[in-house]
């Protein structure tokens, strides 16, 4: 199993969710994060002074998937989240040893 971790632009969340639903992903966990990267932060001007905003708001999605689904998930995310502009984000794929569904105690691919 794999854990797919994607950092995307916040306003793309709905589209990514829909794209994932379409390929049969039924669960995901989402959190608000701040990103620092090539897309440098911008400056905001308040009352004539500049303020630098280094960290930009991003959304992180974590999805546990069976091994064979991982590539499809990655493609779906890239397809939905891509704008082509800098700051689109990253996808990280980590190996996962086990998954448990708390409600039933099921393990493995069953639990996803």
């Amino acid at each position, binding site marked *: 199993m794999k854990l797919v971790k994607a950092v995307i632009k916040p306003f793309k969340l709905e589209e990514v969710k829909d794209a994932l639903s379409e390929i049969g992903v039924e669960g995901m966990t989402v959190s608000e994060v701040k990103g620092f990267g090539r897309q440098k932060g911008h400056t*905001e*001007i*308040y*009352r*004539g*002074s*500049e*303020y*630098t*905003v280094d960290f930009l708001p991003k959304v992180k999605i974590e999805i546990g998937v069976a091994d064979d689904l991982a590539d499809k998930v990655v493609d779906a995310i890239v397809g939905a989240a891509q704008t082509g502009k800098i700051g689109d984000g990253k996808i990280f794929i980590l190996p996962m040893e086990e998954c448990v569904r708390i409600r039933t105690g099921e393990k493995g691919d069953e639990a996803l």
Partner: protein
Amino acid sequence: MPNFPSFLNRLTSQNTEKPINSPMISRTLLILLSMGLATFAYAQDTDPATTGSAVANIQVADAAPESAEEEASLDSGNTAWMLTATALVLFMTLPGLALFYGGLVQSKNVLSVLMHCFAIACLASIIWFAVGYSLALTSGSGKDWIGGQDAFFLKHLSVDALNGDHPETVWIMFQMTFAIITPGLIVGAFVERIKFSAVLLFSGLWLVVVYCPVCYWVWGGGWLAERGVIDFAGGIVVHATAGASALTLAAMLGRRHGFPRNLKPPHNPGMVMTGAAMLWVGWFGFNAGSAAAADTSAGMAMLVTHLSAATASLVWMLVEWRNTGKPGLVGIVTGTIAGLATITPASGSVGPLGAIIIGASAGIICYYACGFVKEKLGIDDSLDVAAVHGIGGILGTLLVSYLGWKGELGGLGINHDTWQD
């Protein structure tokens, strides 16, 4: 106060970049004094035409309670308005100013700023009761630079004493709310880098050493009042003193870590807007209440106050829009406060068109003053107290000479013949 610098040194929290050095103190005290005097002198220079009416404008002229007691009788309408105005001015500080400042700082400092505003309000109230009212607004000392001591702890007070045609108790309360907000304004100069105990100590001392004398000079019958300075609702007493002291203090305390290139933006513009809106509404009490009656003077004060605020907001917004490409919430409401501070000294002497001119000047000049203080002077007056309140108060004091009744441009929008105060 000889070891004030080292004392400050000890109390300053570790957030500052530049340690305070003793010679600086004397220098800055000089700055403070000279700025203050410059203002007053200027005001005086350009004011001769208005001398006659100015004294009448200053509502404390007939405030010596003893003399008023016998002849005057209470007017319930004026008293009702003064009670209301008092509530409105307290509302400006709590929670208005607290939210305004609280929203402008980083989120980790918001509670400390709220605490500063709240505690200063309480402390200033007690000091006003103990010595402030007496020193600032009662005569009896025979001096022209400080008031008497007969009203310490309000021991002179009888329940049915009148000030003009409203109770003296109401007058004490109304003026107390001014003494509350003024040190509150200065909070903006030292946020994010000062210890709480130092705030209390400084604010208490400042109230007695700076506010009370200046208040006496202008409103209590002191030397500036005698020379006919116009300050209807506190452009000098409240805003110029707060601004000058804020600048001095900010220079003394040194800069915040990261100033000026690496600061965090206001953490909550919505909170800033809420506070500014409350300040706007409360300012009706501040300016129209300074008429000390529910009369035509109060009505005109409210109208010009509102027009100046609205104009300054839009002008600030437009300047920002042009300069940065987008209008922002923090900008427009800062314009509001600039417009309100600037009209304050003039709100008893100008008409609607005068208010529009004052508001537009405030919107432009205070906007550029913010950049000037921080970029050119390099002083970290964190929430722009000097640029918005200080410059605003001084600007209004200067403009009133030209725009006010019988001033050079005439009282725009006011019928000269019927304008009498």
